[in-house]
């Protein structure tokens, strides 16, 4: 049966209307993602109602390619303007923006595009082939295991602190604290909401992200004009921004391609696995991938200065996540991430219920969607090349013009997510916070991670303790969580000088034995 669905899906997706939907979705998504202040979440929220009148496969193909396009578009904004369009792109800022500042925006974007293609195709192939088998894995991840993953995620903060580790950890802790704002899952108590209903659900993450990155950047652009400095540069003379040439070599050479392959494949696998696990979404995958790329690199100190592996890793991961989060969807009918949940909502409206019937009664629609994801990745690459060249010319626009426009887009973009005026002020509040942090040289990425993981950590902790009857041993009763916690502990130790001391100690013992 599945074989014929595979074929049926392929034939369906090659229908001109669906191909048009894929191309259109990719283009629109890329445009939206590339606009600072506008986000992938907003794009889907606004366009979903429009797709209700289309055929299910066409509507889904449009939404899926829209999402993929917006993920990549967010990276364009991250690299060129330091304003990530999606949380996943925030990881790309770290190395992407410095590289663009050195005048190599084309290279940064080209590597980003290629890595996205590799990661996306990897997860598409997994999706089309072994997905049903992997789907069963999803069920093994309950609250206890998710808590362990969240703890593991927290340890990444250590490696992301460029500069002072203590300040980075403080930023991470602040992020976690802000993440606890909202209604507590077990008692329903609204925490730190100051009786404001808009905060009952917690800090809307995308709004905070837009504020943290876009607003300080816009202020910097207007105040410094075309002499805008990079974040890591604080020499008295500053560094004059080099405008990138459009004819700059974009795509990697054959040799560079082979060099980036191990990194992209590993990051793609991380993306698929993280997407698979419900509760963790695209936001965390790119950070995990970045961390692993840094861990396995022999040039750790180059990360953060425009090092290309630092761009390749998050990009491959965040495209792979889209495919990965569809695996539990098609295997069990359970959304793997909030974006997939929206896609499923799009299906529900057509009378297609999330569940095992997706692979049986509605197999044709489902496989069309899967093939649409596959082709969307290719469309992304093709459209991306053309679109990106156009985008590089954006760097020619004077900074003083770009600044206010970023503000307008950020305010509209923040409003559009929940149709909430409060979100506009929340975004500006985070903008102010981001500006303060940047001025005090406190790194922002740890705050972002804390904000993402805070709610996950809190909810899963409370659920786990309820399941374990109040005993903390519940985390070691499960093999998966025990292993993950041990890895997390070792990661923390690795960041401290402990291993170095052990190494020195061992060497001393050996030399004293020899003498």
């Amino acid at each position, binding site marked *: 049966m599945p074989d014929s669905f595979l074929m049926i899906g392929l034939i369906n997706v090659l229908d001109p209307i669906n191909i048009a939907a894929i191309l259109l979705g990719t283009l629109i998504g890329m445009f939206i993602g590339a606009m600072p202040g506008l986000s992938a979440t907003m794009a889907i929220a606004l366009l979903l109602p429009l797709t209700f009148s289309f055929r299910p496969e066409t509507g889904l193909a449009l939404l899926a390619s829209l999402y993929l396009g917006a993920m990549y578009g967010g990276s364009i904004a991250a690299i060129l303007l330091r304003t990530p369009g999606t949380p996943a792109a925030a990881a790309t800022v770290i190395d992407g923006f410095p590289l663009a500042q050195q005048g190599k925006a084309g290279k940064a974007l080209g590597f980003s595009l290629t890595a996205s293609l590799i990661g996306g195709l990897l997860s598409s192939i997994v999706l089309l082939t072994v997905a049903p088998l992997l789907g069963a894995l999803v069920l093994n991840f309950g609250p206890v295991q998710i808590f362990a993953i969240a703890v593991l995620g927290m340890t990444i903060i250590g490696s992301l602190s460029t500069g002072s580790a203590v300040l980075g950890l403080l930023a991470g*802790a602040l992020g976690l604290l802000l993440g606890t704002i909202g209604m*507590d899952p077990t008692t329903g108590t609204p925490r730190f909401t100051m009786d404001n209903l808009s905060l009952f659900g917690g800090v809307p993450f995308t709004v905070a992200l837009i504020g943290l990155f876009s607003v300080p950047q816009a202020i910097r652009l207007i105040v410094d004009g075309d002499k805008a400095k990079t974040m890591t540069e604080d020499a008295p003379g500053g560094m004059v921004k080099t405008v990138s040439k459009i004819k700059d070599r974009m795509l990697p050479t054959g040799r560079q391609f082979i060099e980036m392959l191990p990194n992209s494949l590993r990051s793609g696998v991380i993306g698929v696995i993280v997407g698979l696990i419900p509760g963790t979404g695209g936001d965390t995958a790119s950070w995990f991938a970045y961390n692993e790329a840094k861990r396995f690199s022999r040039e750790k100190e180059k990360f953060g200065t425009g090092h290309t592996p630092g761009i390749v890793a998050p990009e491959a991961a965040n495209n792979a996540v889209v495919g990965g989060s569809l695996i539990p969807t098609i295997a069990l009918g359970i959304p793997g991430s909030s974006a997939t949940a929206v896609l499923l909502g799009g299906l529900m409206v057509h009378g297609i219920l999330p569940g095992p019937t997706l692979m049986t009664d509605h197999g044709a629609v489902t496989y069309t969607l899967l093939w649409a994801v596959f082709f969307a990745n290719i469309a992304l690459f093709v459209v991306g090349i053309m679109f990106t060249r156009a985008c590089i010319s954006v760097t020619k626009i004077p900074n003083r013009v770009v600044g*206010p*426009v970023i503000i307008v887009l950020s305010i509209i973009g923040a409003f559009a997510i929940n149709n909430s005026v409060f979100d506009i002020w929340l975004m500006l509040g985070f903008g102010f916070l981001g500006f303060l942090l940047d001025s005090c040289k406190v790194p922002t990425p740890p705050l972002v991670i804390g904000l993402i993981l805070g709610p996950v950590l809190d909810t899963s902790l409370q659920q786990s303790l309820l399941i374990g009857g109040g005993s903390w041993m519940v985390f070691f009763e499960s093999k998966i969580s025990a292993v993950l916690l041990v890895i997390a502990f070792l990661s923390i130790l690795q960041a401290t000088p402990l291993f170095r001391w052990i190494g020195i100690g061992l060497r001393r013992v050996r030399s004293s034995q020899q003498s």
Partner: protein
Amino acid sequence: MTRLLVALAAIIIALIFRNEAAGYPRVAAQLPKLITSVMIGLALLAIVQQLLAWRQVTDGASRYALTMPSWPRIRDGSVFVALIILYAWAITSIGYLIATPAFLLSSLFIARATKPWIILLTAAIVTLAIWVIFVNFLRLPIPLFPRI
């Protein structure tokens, strides 16, 4: 010196949150209490680091030096921030179609971003483009005109 200020600010924030959480049920306050404790610990560590660093610096005055940005930058930044806040307030009271061009024109002219005709064109294009796409096509419920 900045490190010291950051640490102090962190302690203050942690104490405020901790105080607020004291009134919550045990389970709800669990994680906030844990996090604020960690924050205070880290802040104390940062203070210790700063004090140790100061020991190395013999010149007393430079310890307390704060690298402040130049006055023109502060002035420009504050003006722009004030315009942003005004714009956010204006969108909901005066409406998008008036507030947005006002904001764009004022910030671009004050910053002397480019030639006047380009400024007018930019403001017009941006306002119109967003209106067409978001309000017209996507029916974004943002107030367009002043509330009478």
